[in-house]
């Protein structure tokens, strides 16, 4: 079973970059439509029926027919419209922040939550089965009550 899973993981790991490379070398319009924005309506090309979006779709079709790769087509669009034409910011330069900030923010949130949880646990006092528990008056009363009820139940059982 473990071997089968490992083999499957290996196949997926090997196939994914292959598929990505194939998509880059021989892209389809659909491959690019969700990665390119309509410049006038600021939605993904696949969601837009604006005249400008139609022109860009026609341009992509022409470029694909001319044998251009996905990266080349995107570079050509960026050259004409700027980087705002891309649905996702590139992973370099200042735009890298758009990718890193959510990760940093997420990590920071986890650290803050862990810190807050620790503080909350400390302020709540030790659990009932620890020696320090006797210091908590209310917990001790509940404990005694339970003890009494347990004794009564046992006595009833013995009788």
């Amino acid at each position: 079973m473990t071997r089968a899973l490992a083999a499957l993981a290996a196949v997926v790991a090997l196939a994914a970059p292959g598929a990505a490379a194939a998509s880059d070398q021989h892209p389809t319009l659909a491959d690019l439509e969700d990665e390119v924005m309509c410049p006038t309506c600021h939605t993904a090309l696949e969601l837009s029926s604006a005249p400008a979006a139609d022109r860009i779709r026609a341009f992509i079709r022409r470029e694909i027919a001319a044998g251009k790769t996905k990266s080349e087509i995107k570079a050509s669009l960026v050259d004409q419209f700027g980087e705002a034409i891309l649905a996702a910011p590139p992973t370099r330069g200042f735009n890298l922040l758009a990718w890193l900030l959510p990760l940093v923010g997420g990590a920071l949130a986890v650290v803050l939550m862990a810190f807050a949880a620790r503080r909350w646990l400390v302020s709540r006092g030790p659990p009932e089965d620890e020696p320090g528990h006797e210091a908590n008056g209310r917990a001790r009363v509940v404990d005694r009550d339970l003890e009494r009820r347990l004794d009564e139940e046992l006595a009833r059982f013995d009788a």
Partner: protein
Amino acid sequence: MGRRLPKIFLQIAAVVLIALLLGIFAWQLVNRDSATSLGDRVNAGATPPAPTFELERLVGDGTLSLASLRGKAVVLNFWASWCEPCKEESPRLEQAWQQWRHRDVVFVGIDSQDLEGDAMNFARRYGLTYPLLHDGPGAVIGHYGVTGFPETWFVDRHGRLVGPRIQGPISNRTLRRNIQRALESS
């Protein structure tokens, strides 16, 4: 005191962060308002300085800046090849350009949010000979607060906008009247 210090720092950091976000929001708000109100001000008769730009020529090499046209009246026409009303307007602009080009008037067509190849085909099809500039990202339309294509603005000899701005295809009469206004503005 030792335990309180980080808490104070966190509070200060939070306040600074919120102030920063508010500042960005206010900046965006002010910028957007100044862009949209430029047209209103011009339509109301004000003559604010025309936002400057320097863009690549669509046909031929090099760039053209608005500043380099100081001393002449400028007809600034924003268009795109995918814009249907621009097809109706372009021959009229070309005709007017031929009439005014030797009288201290420059027509400048700014092709925005458009593919360069499509724009060049458009210019060829309609025989446009006045200077055409390419602004693919549409940065200049943001400065002017252009809301659609075509849109025409007029700049006087001193680089100030003279109104009104014309949204939609411009008529010969409006074109003539506004060029005269730009030439006579002192």
